[in-house]
């Protein structure tokens, strides 16, 4: 447990993805089975024991400490598990005390422990572990690891152990269970790849490259089919027959995470064996809603009937990877498209429809459609169109981002000129640079013209520009609040940033009343005086009614 705790501890401070991967891979390399398998399960959310309530943890410490000292400590630390981990009284240890529990021991004990024995068992483990070990144990049993590691990242780290492609792990993952001894045996070259018996496995997805203006010269419009790019989330809906002939249906995110549980209202529509690649959307009165609406359905553990009624979920299908028992991924896109049309017709369910194709003969025609989707065939759904997708008619379905097969051509983003107001230091490689910027636009306040913050951005600029902004921030700091610097922002003095963003919504959390989606720094306007930056009214006009 202490080794796992040391890993979690280190991960919780590490900002860099590659460094996280190395830390996890090193842990898998140094830690024997079954502990590393349980660690992988903890990081991928695959552990099944019932989580302890924070009230139980609080009772444990209250019985062992002075209430005034606990109150002062909790107030100072601000996190219950951490407070308890740090102030847990050090027992007088006898030389023959049991060693600290291993992660495997903790997980397997919790799986079968009667609820009423949990407090005594936890107390015993807390006695045996050190500060970091206690912290990790409490985070684990309360189900609140929050160490910035996704299931995908943990699997990628495992794959690196055997120099394997993480896609291969995704393929066999549904057939595996903690502590994954057969997985590690394969990764370490001691055994063959575990066979999956999953009737509804995930297939690694194919991704598109962003197209640049210069790319079109080398592309023939006749080779490509175009579709609208919808502003939803990419999913893979897979149905298959289990050994008992019943249909098993699963919904996966683009990284292979199983999100079936969040969308029970979509599952009955997927009643035929097959694997559909598509976009998850919310439709009301057959109209596609914006991403902001869809967001209400995302990242939820459970869904209420009210939520399902207010946010009806829908699948817009654009590819077919499997049809019954047949794997279609080797077929050219055009043939898969024909199979898809037939498959969707057979499903015959209003929850699932076909992604329409956008007819075009030249790039100019497609550019016109992209600029005004409503005038092409997007109709009233034009608001939810993010751009167009280009797919080579002869492209097989290849995992990853193969060159020249699929392209995404996004609509031009919204752009405004805003004034830099505050800057904060970045993390990791950027920790010596002021790289997070809060920017504002003009509005008429009680005291006349003033800037009101409308967003924050920390990318979009080049390394060269970062150095320039960093210099500017250091030179024109007017006040400091911890890691944040207020930067001069007067009508005639300050830095204007051209900010690009994808969408705008009303927000009660921001003083300005608006929140941007995906804002980034498009350009530095050294040439522009701050007084000429945009006004809040301009943004308010962009809000959809």
């Amino acid at each position, binding site marked *: 447990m202490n080794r796992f705790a040391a890993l979690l501890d280190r991960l919780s*401070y590490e900002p860099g993805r590659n460094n996280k991967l*190395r830390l996890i891979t*090193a842990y898998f390399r140094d830690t024997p089975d079954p502990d590393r398998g349980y660690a992988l399960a903890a990081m991928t959310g695959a552990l099944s024991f019932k989580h302890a309530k924070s009230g139980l943890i609080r009772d444990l410490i209250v019985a062992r400490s002075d209430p005034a000292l*606990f109150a002062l400590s909790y107030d100072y630390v601000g996190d219950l598990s951490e*407070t308890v981990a740090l102030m847990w009284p050090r027992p007088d240890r006898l030389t023959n005390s049991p060693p600290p529990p291993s992660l495997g021991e903790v997980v397997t004990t919790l799986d079968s422990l009667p609820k009423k024995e949990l407090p005594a068992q936890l107390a015993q483990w807390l006695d045996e572990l*050190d500060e970091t070990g206690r912290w990790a144990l409490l985070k684990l049993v309360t189900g609140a690891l929050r160490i910035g590691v996704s299931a995908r990242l943990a699997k990628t780290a495992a794959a690196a152990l055997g120099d394997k492609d993480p896609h291969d792990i995704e393929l066999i993952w549904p057939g595996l269970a903690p502590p994954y001894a057969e997985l590690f045996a394969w990764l370490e070259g001691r055994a063959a790849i575990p066979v999956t018996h999953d009737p509804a496995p995930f297939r690694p997805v194919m991704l598109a490259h962003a197209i640049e203006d210069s790319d079109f010269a080398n592309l023939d419009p006749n080779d490509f089919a175009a579709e609208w790019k919808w502003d939803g989330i990419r999913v893979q809906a897979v149905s298959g027959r289990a050994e008992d002939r019943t249909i098993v249906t699963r919904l996966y995110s683009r990284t292979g995470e199983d999100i079936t549980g969040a969308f029970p209202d979509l599952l009955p529509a997927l009643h035929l064996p097959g694997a559909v690649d598509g976009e998850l959307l919310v439709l009301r009165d057959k109209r596609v809603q914006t991403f902001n609406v869809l967001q209400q359905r995302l990242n939820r553990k459970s869904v209420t009937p009210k939520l399902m009624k207010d946010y009806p979920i829908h699948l817009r299908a654009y590819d077919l990877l499997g049809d019954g028992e047949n794997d279609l991924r080797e077929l050219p896109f055009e043939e898969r498209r024909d199979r898809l049309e037939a498959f969707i017709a057979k499903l015959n369910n209003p929850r699932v429809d076909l992604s329409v194709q956008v007819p075009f003969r030249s790039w100019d025609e497609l550019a016109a459609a992209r600029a005004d989707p409503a005038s092409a065939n997007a109709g009233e759904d034009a608001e939810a169109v993010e751009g167009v997708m280009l797919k080579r008619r002869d492209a097989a379905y290849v995992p990853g981002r193969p060159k020249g097969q699929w392209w995404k051509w996004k609509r031009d983003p919204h752009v405004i000129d805003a004034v830099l107001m505050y800057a904060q230091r970045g993390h*990791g490689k950027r*920790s010596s640079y002021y790289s997070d910027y809060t920017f504002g636009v003009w509005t008429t306040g009680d005291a006349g013209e003033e800037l009101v913050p409308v967003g924050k951005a920390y990318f979009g600029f080049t390394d060269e520009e970062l150095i320039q902004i960093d210099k500017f921030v250091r030179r024109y700091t007017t006040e400091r609040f911890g890691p944040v610097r207020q930067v001069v922002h007067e009508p005639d003095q300050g830095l204007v940033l051209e900010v690009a963003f994808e969408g705008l919504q009303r927000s009660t959390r921001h003083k300005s009343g608006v929140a941007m989606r995906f804002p980034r720094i498009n350009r530095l306007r050294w040439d522009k005086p701050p007084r000429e930056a945009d006004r809040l009214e301009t943004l308010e006009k962009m809000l959809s009614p």
Partner: protein
Amino acid sequence: MAGKLAPMKSPPYITTMRPQDILVPQPHGLCCRPGEFYIDPVRPVARALITHGHSDHARAGHGAVLATQETLDMMRLRYGDDFAGSTQAITYGEEIRFGTCQVKFHPAGHVLGSAQISVTCGGVRVVASGDYKDVADPTCAPFEVVPCDVFITEATFGLPVFRHGNPQAEIAKLLNSVALFPERAHLVGAYSLGKAQRVIAMLRQAGYDAPIYLHGAMETITRYYESRGIALGELRPARDAKKVELAGTITLAPPTAIQDLWTRRFPDPLAAFASGWMRVRARARQRGIELPLVISDHADWDGLCATIEATGAHEIWVTHGQEDALVHWATTKGLTARPLALVGYGEEDEETALPTSDGTKA
């Protein structure tokens, strides 16, 4: 008296001196009226007794200064030769009389030359402990428990959540990280006086024998430690090294430097910070530390409590830090305890840290 402390079991009305007649907090600092001196005064006074060389305790401009040789040397390094009207060095255990008071210095285990000051007057002994820690430190004399009637303690880490644990395990954490990321430069933020040298000495104890690099602000004081016989192995100024040479190395720097412009000379720098504050995750995260190392120059909660009990003092005065919790704890143990409203103490101010070897500020 002759070194033996009068047992304080007798009823208080027999005692002629009250503790507050011996030492009393004043705006200038802790004042001894019968001895006509101040301990660690924050403003210039005629006579100052200084516990240790950190800038919040050892200030310039006093008339006469009494301190250990090391503390006097550190003040000279920081403020120049004319930092005081006159100076007098005292060794641990040596007794000096001021008026009706006997004064003795005892090791505080905080940094090199750090001392607790005991003041005995009219049969009552008060110990002002300055900053102290009760755990091993290869760079200074070990803390000594001084039996007394009144113990004046700091409370920097005066909350039960501050458990510093085993510092060698933190050093092992640093060395593991260096092994795992050999292409990165590990920058360890540490206070220039004391902490930095302790970290270096512990790295050597752990068997790390590669050259260790120093920020300019560390050099003078670190060379001074070496001149006092503390072996620190091969040390190099970071400013002379090429970027590629610094991959896989450890550099000690003041905490304010490890994330600023200075770090750009290092390959993919990794920010570590050696401090007792690193025990609390939010603290480490606020500062953007990637590798917190819980290594402290102050006693942790268990150390504070154990020390208070070991002194046998029946009255506890708590100075800077988290006074409330420690006062509360002492009260539950049947002791008389109160916070002393002293201002001007805390973490050493790095802005007034020692000058760099080339005479510029860090």
